[in-house]
């Protein structure tokens, strides 16, 4: 089985360049990259003018299965991933049961294999039932296929428990992905605390709620030596904390979501529940700091925090709606429209944050196009424009604040293990 991607602009993350070349895939692996590769015996994808990228990897999604199949299933979630240009996703453990034991890992992997679309990397829980009390059987989880541990959706409130978890995960070389939020500061907050929370009369979530927890976890990571990847940072103070930790040489990485570099808390005006997300949409100065952090490399990864909910769950008063929005099918368009077209990131930097760095953080295959690598490839047309239409989403979740927004730069073909899982070949 041969596949030839012909005439595209190959994004070479190692050399920091974009070069016109053909990519030959044989039996699920990249067999050759070069000019004018022979066509014979291969199915040809004409990629003129398009970016041929290492498969994008979203290291922060909620696939909702088991238990919350009304919101999303592994089949619909991976279909959304493929449509959004992601060849792999790492799914958070806040399902029911929580992914805190091997049987849930096995179930997720089996469902993903049946779906046969994007690769799925399960993330195990840090603590049993994510209750923050007792650490999970992390060695067992890792052996079954978990690539990291996180209690995403909830903080590990006890610093003592977090310290032990980091020591244990560090021993196993499992990255710890904390959801940094001090609940005593969040209280009943539903949006960023600032001018707009004052005007809208909604309870605010101060930036400090995120920052004090990030500071704590950086200190604990330093003393335990664990690999720390901070989920969804959203404030200027958070960027600064990570920047300083990196300057000290710590093994700390972090991610930001497309909605946090695109929208501010002003988007909440009108009380549209699609804008209710945790961490909340922040102020203009936070967004500016996030963009600076992306440009200077403080922020390594762009991840969606794809969080589907049903229509009826979101069709309620703002304070009563669940947190979360869907991101898989708008991420690439937002990265290209908001970051690449505006000069915040180059194409290579953007793809590095969407593919290479996520692969490094989780220690999974892919992330670069090279002979012998798995043939996970995303083809992006940087000029293709579309208006976001949630009705066309493959995801069950239609909860996006970007409905109707024009995006330029979209995935056209997604290839996983040499097989086209989205787009016309």
């Amino acid at each position, binding site marked *: 089985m041969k596949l030839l991607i012909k005439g595209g602009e190959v994004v070479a993350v190692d050399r920091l360049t974009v070069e016109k070349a053909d990519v030959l895939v044989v039996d699920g692996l990249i067999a050759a990259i070069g000019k004018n590769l022979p066509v014979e015996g291969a199915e040809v994808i004409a990629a003129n003018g398009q970016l041929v990228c290492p498969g994008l990897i979203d290291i922060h999604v909620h696939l909702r299965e088991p238990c919350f199949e009304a919101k999303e299933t592994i089949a619909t979630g991976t279909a959304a991933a493929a449509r959004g240009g992601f060849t792999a996703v790492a799914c958070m453990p806040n399902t029911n049961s929580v992914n805190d034991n091997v049987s849930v890992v096995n179930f997720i992997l089996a469902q993903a294999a049946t779906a046969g679309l994007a690769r799925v990397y399960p993330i195990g829980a840090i603590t049993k039932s994510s209750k923050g009390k007792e650490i999970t059987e992390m060695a067992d989880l890792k052996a079954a296929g978990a690539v990291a541990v996180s209690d995403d959706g909830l903080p590990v409130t006890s610093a003592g428990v977090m310290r032990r978890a980091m020591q244990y995960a560090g021993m196993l070389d499992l990255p710890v992905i904390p959801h940094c939020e001090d609940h005593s500061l969040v209280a009943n907050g539903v949006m960023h*605390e*600032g*001018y707009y*929370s*004052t*005007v*809208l*009369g*909604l*309870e*605010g979530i101060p930036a400090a709620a995120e920052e004090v927890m990030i500071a704590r976890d950086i200190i604990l990571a330093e003393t335990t030596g664990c690999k720390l990847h901070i989920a969804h940072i959203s404030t200027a103070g958070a960027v600064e904390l990570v920047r300083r930790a990196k300057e000290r040489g710590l093994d700390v990485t972090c991610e930001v979501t497309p909605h946090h570099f695109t929208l501010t808390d002003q988007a909440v005006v*009108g*009380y549209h529940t699609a804008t209710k997300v945790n961490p909340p949409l922040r102020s203009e100065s936070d967004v500016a700091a996030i963009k600076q952090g992306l440009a200077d490399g403080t922020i390594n990864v762009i991840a969606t925090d794809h969080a589907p909910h049903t229509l*009826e769950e979101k*069709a*309620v*008063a*703002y*304070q*009563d709606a669940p947190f979360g929005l869907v991101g898989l099918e708008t991420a690439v368009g937002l990265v290209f429209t908001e970051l690449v077209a505006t000069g915040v990131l180059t194409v290579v930097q953007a793809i590095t944050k969407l593919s290479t760095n996520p692969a490094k953080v989780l220690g999974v295959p892919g992330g670069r196009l090279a002979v012998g690598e798995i043939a996970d490839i995303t083809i992006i047309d940087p000029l293709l424009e579309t208006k976001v239409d949630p009705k066309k989403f493959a995801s069950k979740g239609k909860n996006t604040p970007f409905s109707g927004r024009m995006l330029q730069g979209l995935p056209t073909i997604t290839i996983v293990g040499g097989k086209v899982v989205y787009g016309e070949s």
Partner: protein
Amino acid sequence: MGLQCRHLLGLEHISVADILKILATARPMKDIIKRQIKKVPTLRGRVVTTVFYENSTRTKMSFDLAAKYLSADVVGLSAIGSSIQKGESLADTARTVAAMGADVLVLRHPASGAAALLADLVPCAVINAGDGRHEHPTQALLDLFTIKDHKGSFEGLKVAIIGDILHSRVARSNIWGLTKLGVEVRVAAPATLLPPELSRLGVKVYTKVEEALAGVDVINVLRLQLERQKQSLLPTLREYAVLYGVNKERLALAKEDALLMHPGPMNRGIEITAEVADGDQAVITEQVTNGVAIRMALLYLLTGGEIVETIN
């Protein structure tokens, strides 16, 4: 006809022209309330529904009477003993009420933005009778009416709002309304009860009540919810009363003819002393009468009525 706005969701987005029209229309409405026969046929055949998800005495009764004085049929729905208790969503409840033929839906709800949510869903006019901490526009309008009644105009006035600004929809609506009319607005509260970036709304923010009160024309004292102490927003009610309670000495810092207002219900001895609440400068019961007049004016204007000098 009527108002530029189709609903009354708050004072943030309403025009000054609409505010002035409502205040002007409330004047003849107040005359009706003072008559021996308090009923005009103006809204005969019109239906007003009140949907209350929170307990309310004065606002609910005020809307009921306003509708009745104008001969509208008024039906109320409260959170207790209705489909609301059966878990029907706010949106479904509103659609049901509207489908029964309501011309005006009056909503009180604990969630900020609830009235805005409904306004997008129902064909009738929506009046926000208080949504969470967001707005309570009819209260602010009756406050404006009361001020105008006594001061003649808004020009050059200074108004101090004292108390729990953070949780207060009355404060927010008053701030929007007063600043639109060019009034200098001051707010005073402990730092724990002030929302962030308040000064961007064009108000002066104080933590010392004496500074806020110096030379003002109107003092509007907010009710302090007694549970704030448990939320560690206040050490004790006693210390709040000592630092912020409006008493005779503090009242004397304002202009000699300053009005003392309170949206009720009062915690006498906490945010306000009985002595000043019952004193000459207090217009608290007048506010209640004016509330009925304002709500009559709104029901009339939102169903398409035009401004008039008197109503028969």
